[in-house]
């Protein structure tokens, strides 16, 4: 138990010397993404090899550094040498790595990048010899296109510290913001700092965080509550999971600062059911924070008390909506209520409640530490700081990308994520998950911030980005998202429940070739009705995928209805595949992959698809190396 702020400072300096020990430290990225790629075996392989050889190495489990493509990732930190990251590790490669290090040769075969100064990602300087020990050929993080433009604020420390060891967080500068707050700042001053920094809610709404805190602080009612929304439900979004798994302490520190500012004594972290590792890591972090006197009755001996509890969702998308989350947390069915009165005035158990998203809380300690001016300089006019995007889909580099607000979509997709997979053409990017919109090539130079995305017909949402190439049918994408939302709508209000059902029905008609020209008008009318009349955020944004595709890809809808064709070759009833004889090299790949034996052909003779047998699955088109399978 740490009983004073001075004691905490002492603890930090001793933790620092532990963090950069005189021996080699090997860390394995064991977030859910790493584990899914076999990081567990890699960890065991490395640990066993170290034990077998009797080496004095430290082997640690860390979170993820956000480069999904490269998992499993292992990094090696040797005294006075750059930290080196290795990608695509396997137990064998891990053993080879250990043997190499024990002989003094750093292997560079699977090296992803090196980190000369930890400044970029961890708030820590480290003495280096200037020697690179044969690592000169390994690029630095600043040289990697994926990391070059990234600015890590919310994700800082993720993948660099052990999420089960609070001392590593302390070593990396953790809880210095809380010390600062308790020593020299009053609640009003904290709220001022957060408001002046221009921090806006990262969960999607983009409401000014400082303002929300102020309303809650001034609202009558006791006790007050702090909630962290970790119910990240958007398909393709996983930044909150990464933070909860890789650096749970930063959320606790942020929430503690928030609690001090608004006068709360109890906090809740609501985590979605599908994140068991996040729950485990958060619970262990809370336990340690209590043991260290950083949560509990009198934090750091100051008399200020705050405690946090983890609460698990039950797998409903709508519970990411704050009023539904609050209902669920209080034990009721996860259904929203009208936000004519905000939770900041009347929230959990009818008391004033501040509810912020995981990423928002992760920003708070840095803003306190570095001051609002530093934060307000990052980003653009109305959206400050950085935003984490999870870029998935048809791009070369998938992963978590934290960039300053206002960067263009083009830079994210092409410069950072390496462009479209297999040299195909870019068609659209769905931002903000199923409630967002699908944006075309023409708006790729749009600066990504809260307001401009909304103007373009999409939303920032939680920051999911699904990149689509020209083999994706936008009408089918819209139908897919409507199906998802129809299933996930809670069904409380007529607009969302009945409106979405009818939208889905119209879209199903269009994608199955039964659409009529009047359907477009009906679709628009329904979408605008659902947008303007739904009770909660889910319904209000649910029509975005349809409205945005109608705005940018209307001709594709018309092709489905008038020409009875799906230009992308996705909607089965509207697609006929044929092999272009001049392109076909008769390689036979399509014959092998066809599941219904619809393709015939011999060596050196262009192949043929039998229309009678073909079920339009598109498998032949996927495998054809010459783009010979075309739609007609």
């Amino acid at each position, binding site marked *: 138990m740490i009983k004073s702020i001075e004691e905490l400072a002492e603890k930090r300096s001793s933790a620092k010397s532990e963090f950069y020990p005189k021996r080699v430290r090997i860390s394995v990225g064991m977030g859910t993404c790493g584990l899914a790629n076999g990081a567990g075996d890699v960890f065991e392989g490395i640990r066993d090899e170290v034990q077998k050889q009797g080496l004095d190495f430290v082997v640690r489990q860390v979170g993820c550094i956000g480069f999904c493509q490269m998992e499993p990732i292992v990094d090696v930190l040797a005294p006075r040498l750059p930290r080196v990251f290795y990608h695509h590790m396997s137990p064998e490669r891990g053993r080879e790595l250990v043997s190499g290090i024990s002989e003094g040769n750093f292997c560079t075969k699977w090296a992803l990048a090196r980190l000369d100064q930890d400044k970029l990602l961890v708030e820590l300087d480290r003495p280096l010899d200037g020697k690179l020990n044969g690592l000169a050929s390994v690029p630095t993080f600043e040289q990697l296109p994926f990391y070059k433009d990234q600015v890590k604020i919310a994700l800082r420390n993720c993948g660099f510290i052990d999420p089960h060891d609070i001392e590593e967080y302390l070593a990396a500068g953790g809880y210095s913001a809380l010390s600062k707050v308790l020593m020299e700042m009053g609640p009003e001053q904290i709220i001022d700092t957060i408001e002046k920094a221009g921090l806006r809610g990262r969960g999607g709404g983009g409401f000014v965080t400082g303002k929300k805190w102020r309303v809650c602080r001034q609202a009558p009612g006791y006790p007050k509550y702090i909630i962290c929304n970790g119910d990240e439900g958007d398909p393709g979004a996983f930044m909150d999971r990464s933070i909860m798994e890789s650096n749970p302490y930063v959320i606790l520190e942020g929430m503690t600062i928030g609690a001090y500012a608004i006068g709360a004594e109890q906090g809740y972290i609501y985590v979605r059911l599908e994140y068991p590792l996040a729950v485990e890591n958060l619970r262990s972090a809370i336990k340690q924070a209590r043991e260290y006197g950083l949560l509990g009755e009198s934090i750091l001996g100051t008399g200020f008390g705050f405690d946090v509890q983890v609460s698990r969702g039950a797998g409903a998308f709508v519970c990411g909506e704050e009023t539904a989350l609050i209902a669920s947390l209080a034990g009721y069915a996860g259904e929203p209520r009208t936000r004519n009165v905000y939770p900041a005035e009347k929230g959990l158990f009818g008391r004033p409640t501040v509810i912020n998203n995981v990423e928002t809380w992760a920003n708070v300690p840095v803003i306190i530490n570095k001051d609002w001016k530093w934060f307000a300089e990052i980003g653009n006019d109305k959206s400050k700081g950085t935003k984490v995007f999870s870029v998935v889909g048809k791009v070369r580099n998938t992963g978590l990308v934290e960039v300053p607000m206002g960067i263009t979509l083009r830079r994210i997709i092409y410069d950072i994520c390496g462009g479209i997979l297999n040299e195909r053409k870019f068609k659209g990017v769905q931002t903000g998950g199923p409630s967002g919109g699908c944006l075309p090539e023409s708006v790729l130079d749009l600066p990504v911030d809260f307001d401009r995305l909304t103007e373009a017909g999409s939303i920032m949402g939680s920051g999911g980005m699904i990149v689509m190439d020209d083999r994706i049918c936008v009408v089918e994408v819209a139908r897919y998202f409507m199906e998802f939302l129809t299933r996930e709508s*809670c069904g409380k*209000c007529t607009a969302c429940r009945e409106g979405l059902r009818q939208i889905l029905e119209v879209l199903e008609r269009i994608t199955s070739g039964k659409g009529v020209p009047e359907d477009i008008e009906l679709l628009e009318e329904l979408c605008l009705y659902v947008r303007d009349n739904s009770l909660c955020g889910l319904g209000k944004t649910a029509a975005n995928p349809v409205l945005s595709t109608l705005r940018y890809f209307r001709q594709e809808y018309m092709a489905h209805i008038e020409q009875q064709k799906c230009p992308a070759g996705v909607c089965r009833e509207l697609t006929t595949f044929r092999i272009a004889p001049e392109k076909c090299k008769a390689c036979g790949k399509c014959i092998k992959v066809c599941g219904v034996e619809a393709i015939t052909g011999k060596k050196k003779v262009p192949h043929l698809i039998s229309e009678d047998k073909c079920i339009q699955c598109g498998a032949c088109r996927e495998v054809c190396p010459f783009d010979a399978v075309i739609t007609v």
Partner: protein
Amino acid sequence: MALVETVIDGIKIKAERDRWALDVAREMGISIPTLCHHPALEPYGACRLCVVEVTKGERTWLTTSCDLPIREGLKIKTDTPAVIESRKMTLELLWARAPQAEYIQKLAREYGVEKPRFGVCDDLGKCILCGLCVRVCSELVGASAISFTNRGVERKITTPFNASSDSCIGCNACAVVCPTGHILSTDIGLVRHMETWKTELDMVRCQVCGRAYIPAKEFEHIQSKLGEQMALGKICPLCRRSQTAGRLEAASTGTKTELTKIPALFEI
């Protein structure tokens, strides 16, 4: 309670802060249709029929008036084209959802909807999922015998596991508040059949006229709420009324009649 100034349909009024806009507007004689609203229950905001157009500062939006608290400077309009269009669509969608509900069709015709343009779905009977029955059962009666099940378009109202309910006291409050007449309840002999909830309840006879008038469970429920001090007499509302009338008469004429021998409502 603090008074605030607000404008409803162009009329400047002073109203208590945080009163519901729907109540204030109705008191002004403005008619706003509702389906999921009941004065005895908490606002719910689900049917979307009571939408109004609200302007605050530079922002104008549609919102339900049943759960809109009156605040200083709100401008509320209850009959703009946007409001009418919205109600029309709501009714059209509900018509498609519950094509048997005559009341919805009547309302929809009032708004100029002749026929829904959508595919109809007929699996809920007359139920429009307004939730009044669920809320009256839990909020007011305190029995919580019925609830919503499933999510989204699959949503429906039923008893736990679709089975006969042990918690239902047969009070008929659900049937009374139902705006479309979906909930059916019939008394046959000594049994009340809550048909919609697949529940049957034994009834108690009136000690005076002998008519079965209340389910035994409802009687016990009321008795348990009243406490031991107030033992409830088994007397039906009709007999109670004539008894009261008799007492009043006796009091005014000063004569004692046979009626006073009838057991009182409360046996104190």
